[in-house]
Structure formats: structure tokens, C-alpha cells
């Protein structure tokens, strides 16, 4: 009940944030120099053509009305039409979001496991070899450009060792399965096609590893720092002095208290992951949201840019909310 009320309160607080986000996404394109219509019409267009395009896109209306009709459309799942492909943006989003989500979820899960395991191990061996190795690894992960890391992994594992598949597609060409959920690992299982499932895992391997490596670094540092704090805290030292079994001490004290800080940081890192996925999709020719948005950006397809910015920001804000709720559930001290 307490949690439900808290969630409701946070959902209400979300409304002004989302209004702000939609205003920024909408006016970003209009505040910047240049007339969006001039980006749309061909360079040979006459004044009459430009006026016609303006009317067709509703750009002759007052700005406030344009905004309201855009937001109204978004509420009904209508993000408008791409001005370069003429496809419905909602249809494109529905098709591409699962591909990106799949990358993000696996990368995040892998990063969390690595960071918790590594961070706690580093803290327990403070200033000894494992700690030094892990801190060096975190420094590496924080400094390496993720798109270059992806290319180097392709060079090593595809070009060199030939253990990874070519960087394109989600399964080998001959193993296509019907799409039901859009999540390839689920769809191959639903189709009962074990070979395709393994092939999908094979194709996910490098992009997920690349993303996971770069987001593990900041998480690892934070887990290490909070584990060190717990180890030095009075209540932990008291519990240890009472001679609790090492297993209990580790699980109920060290882990439990270390993890309470993780949700908030994971949410921030998720934003990096969202941005990074654009680069990684580009490197691995992964036909997800990032590639779609990138193409839109390269040709200045402004309804596409607008929709992408809006979707990314909304996802980010909702993830933050989720993190706060998890945090509140983990840590009874949080005031709800």
C-alpha cells in the first residue's frame, strides 16, 4: 500500500516533466536557425511549393496549435510521418524498438552482474591485486571509445579468430524465423528453432559485450565505493565482531547494504547506454531504433528526430522512476 501510494505520487510528478520534455523536443527544431520547410522541399522548389508544403505539414498554423496537435497525436500513438520515407513513424518505432531494447536489456543485465561481483570483490581485497586489476579495468572501460571497441572486437573475433559472425543481421541468413514479439531470442524459442536461437545468441554476443564493457566501468566504481563504505561502517563491523557466519555476513550485510545505492546509478548509466546504442547499432549494422534515428538525423528528417528525442527522454525518465521505486523497496529508510 505504501509502495502503491508512492508510485502514484511519483507518476503524478512525472506529468510536468513529460510536458517539459515534449516542449523541448518540439521547440528544439523550431528555435534553431533556419526554416524547417526549407529542409523538406527540394532546392528547386518555388515559393508556391514551399507554401503548399507548409500547409500540408500544418506549419502555417500558430505554433501553440501545432504543439497541441502534435502532443494530441502522440497520445493516440501518432508521431506523424517521416518526411523522407513517408512511412508512419509509429509503425517504424513499433518495429525497431524491440531490437534496441533487446540489446539494452542484455547489456544492462550483464553489466550489473559484472559490476556487483567485481565491485564487491575489489572492496574485499582493498588495495590488493584483485582491487588493482579491477580498478585498472574500470579506468579502461571509462576511457575507451565504445564504437572503436566494437570495431576492435570485430577485428579480433570475426576477422582474426573467426569465432564471431559477420557484423550484420540478427541470425544467420538461412535461419530466419517469423517475428511475433520482435525479441529475437523469444521468437526463435517460440518457433522451436534451437539452431536459430543459438545463431541469435551468436549475433548478439559482440554488440552486447561492447555495450556492457563500457557501462560496467562506472557501475563497478560505484559498487566498490559503497562496498568499502559498508565494510567500514559500525554496524557491519559489529556484526562481524559478533562472529556471524561469513555467508550471512556477505549476503545479509555487505550485499544488501551495497545494493541499495545501485538503482539510482543504474538509471544514469542507462542514459549512457541509450546514447551508446546508437553508435553500437551503427557499428554492427543492427537495424534498431538508433540506426533509424541516425538516418533521420543525417538527412534532417525532423519528425523522426523529434520522435526519437521524445521516446528516448520518456524512456529515460521512466527508468529513473523505476529506479527510485526499486530503491525505496530495497531501503526501508527512504521516505516515500
Amino acid at each position, binding site marked *: 500500500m505504501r509502495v502503491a501510494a508512492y508510485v502514484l505520487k511519483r507518476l503524478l510528478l512525472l506529468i510536468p516533466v513529460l510536458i517539459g*520534455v515534449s516542449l523541448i523536443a518540439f521547440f528544439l527544431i523550431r528555435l534553431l536557425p533556419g526554416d524547417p520547410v526549407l529542409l523538406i522541399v527540394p532546392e528547386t522548389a518555388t515559393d508556391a511549393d514551399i507554401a503548399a508544403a507548409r500547409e500540408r505539414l500544418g506549419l502555417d498554423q500558430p505554433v501553440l496549435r501545432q504543439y497541441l496537435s502534435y502532443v494530441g497525436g502522440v497520445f493516440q500513438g501518432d508521431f506523424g510521418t517521416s518526411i523522407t520515407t513517408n512511412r508512419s513513424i509509429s509503425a517504424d518505432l513499433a518495429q525497431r524498438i524491440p531490437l534496441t531494447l533487446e540489446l539494452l536489456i542484455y547489456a544492462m543485465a550483464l553489466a550489473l552482474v559484472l559490476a556487483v561481483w567485481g565491485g564487491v570483490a575489489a572492496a574485499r581485497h582493498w588495495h590488493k591485486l584483485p582491487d588493482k586489476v579491477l580498478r585498472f579495468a574500470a579506468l579502461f572501460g571509462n576511457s575507451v*571509445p565504445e564504437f572503436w571497441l566494437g570495431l576492435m572486437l570485430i577485428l579480433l573475433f570475426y576477422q582474426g579468430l573467426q569465432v564471431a559472425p559477420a557484423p550484420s543481421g540478427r541470425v544467420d541468413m538461412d535461419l530466419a524465423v517469423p517475428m511475433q514479439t520482435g525479441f529475437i531470442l523469444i521468437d526463435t524459442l517460440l518457433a522451436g528453432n534451437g539452431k536459430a536461437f543459438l545463431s541469435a545468441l551468436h549475433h548478439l554476443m559482440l554488440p552486447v559485450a561492447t555495450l556492457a564493457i563500457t557501462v560496467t566501468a562506472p557501475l563497478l566504481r560505484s559498487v566498490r565505493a559503497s562496498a568499502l563504505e559498508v565494510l567500514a561502517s559500525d554496524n557491519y563491523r559489529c556484526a562481524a565482531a559478533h562472529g556471524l557466519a561469513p555467508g550471512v555476513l556477505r549476503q545479509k550485510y555487505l550485499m544488501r547494504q551495497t545494493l541499495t545505492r545501485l538503482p539510482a546509478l543504474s538509471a544514469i548509466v542507462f542514459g*549512457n547506454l*541509450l546514447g551508446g546504442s546508437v553508435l553500437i547499432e551503427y557499428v554492427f549494422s543492427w537495424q534498431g531504433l538508433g540506426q533509424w534515428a541516425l538516418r533521420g538525423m543525417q538527412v534532417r528528417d525532423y519528425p523522426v528526430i523529434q520522435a526519437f528525442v521524445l521516446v528516448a527522454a520518456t524512456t529515460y525518465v521512466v527508468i529513473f522512476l523505476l529506479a527510485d521505486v526499486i530503491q525505496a523497496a530495497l531501503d526501508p529508510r527512504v521516505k516515500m
Partner: protein
Amino acid sequence: MILSLPRRLVRLPSMVLAGLAILTLVALAAVFAPWLTPWGPEEMDMMYFLEGPMPGHWLGTDANGMDVLSRILHGARIDLGVAIASVAIAVTLGTLVGLVFGYAGGWLDHIGMRVLDMFQAFPVFILALAVAAILGNSMINLILTIGFINAPPYARLIRAEVLSLRNRTFVEAAEAAGNSHISMLFRHLLPNALTPILVIAPLNCGWAILMLASLSFVGLGVPVPGAEWGAMISAGAADIVGGRWWTATFPGIALFVTVLGFNLVGEGLQEKGVKR
């Protein structure tokens, strides 16, 4: 002051020293690039296209016959220059905004902070992509884009410092002595609020370089054939599947090492701060 500099350097953590050493080398490469390299950054050697490392082209040539080593050294000028310029903009802008919000308080502070919150709802790199795409990719636009996007954290930081300084006796004394607002802001509050920025700024330079290189990598930053590390990696990406690894690998190493230099300095300073 100058005589005590060596002793001050020695007292810095080894991480900071290592980072400073790397950055000094990169800065030297940037300054002396034209004299260090036999080839211009966009000069083509018509004899060798996409040739591996060899005498005369120590890191090989790219698909246009341009010398990879010469381009990397010249690239240091663009990458380091854009990073430092954009962080300077971010620091200046963020500091001014944070000072004013923190000092003024009231509705201005309240509304200003809510606007900053809104911008923080966007993943940083996605905002950078969108703004770069809309503004177009001239060098000035890139510097401004990266600078503006990195400004909000500084505003927050300075505002928090100012808020905590406001209750200190020396600030109250300065106010009671009848200092003008301008003098309060710039002579009394600003110098005392600057310390945390010194730690964040090096880390931020690393991010700024990564951001520039990432934008160039996807074609929204420095356009080809500009000698920028991300753009070079982007052009070299296509060569990798053919086994011609040098065009993407070497600029990436330069990028990685430079960012590592900034991170070593930033993290080293951070640790030093924690110990105190």
C-alpha cells in the same frame, strides 16, 4: 610560487602525474604536428593507397593515400582544441548561471532549476546528436553544441557551493560591508566556489573528446576528409572487414590514450579530494 611548483608536482598522486605526462605529449603533438610529420593531414601519396605500416608511412596509408600518422598528429589539434574550447564554454556558462541562481534565490532560482531538470531528462549523447544534426556540422557549431550540453552540471555544482557559502560569516561580513552584487558574486563567492570545478573539468574534457569523436564517427561531426580521430575511425571502419586494420586502429589508440590522460588527472584529483 614558481620555485614551489616542482615540489607541488611531486606531491600530486602518481595517477595525476601519469595523466599529465600523457596530455603533455598529446599537446606537444598538436602544437608541433606540421614539423613532426612529413605529410600534410590531407595530402595524398598517389603511390600508396591503403598500404599497411612501412618505412615512410609508419602507420600505413588510408583509402585516399593519406598518411595515417600525419593525420593522427594533426588530429590532436582538432580533438584537443574542440574539447578544451567546449569545456571552457561549459564552465563559463554553467558558472555564471549557477552563481546567479544560487545568489538570487527565490523564483528565478526555482524556475531556472526546473528548466535545468528538464534538460537533464534527455540522455546527453542523444541531445548532442539531435542538436548537431539540426545545427549542422561546422566547427563552431560543434564546439557550441558540446559546450552547451555539458554546461548544466556546472550550474548545479556552483549553485550548490554558493548556497552553502551564503551562510558563512565571511560572506555575511562582505554583504554587511556594503559590497555591490557584482563584487559579491565575482570577488567573494566565485573564487570560493571554484574548487570542485577543477576536479570535474578534466573528466569533462575526456567526455567532450569522446562526444566529438562519436559525432564524427556517425557523420554528424567533423566532415571527411577532416583529420579528426572519430572521422578517421569512421572512414577506416569499412576497411576492417577486409583485414586492413590500421586505418581504424591507430586513430582509436590516439583517442583512447588521450581520454585516458584526462581521466587519470580527473580521477586522481578526485581521490586526493576524498582523502582530505
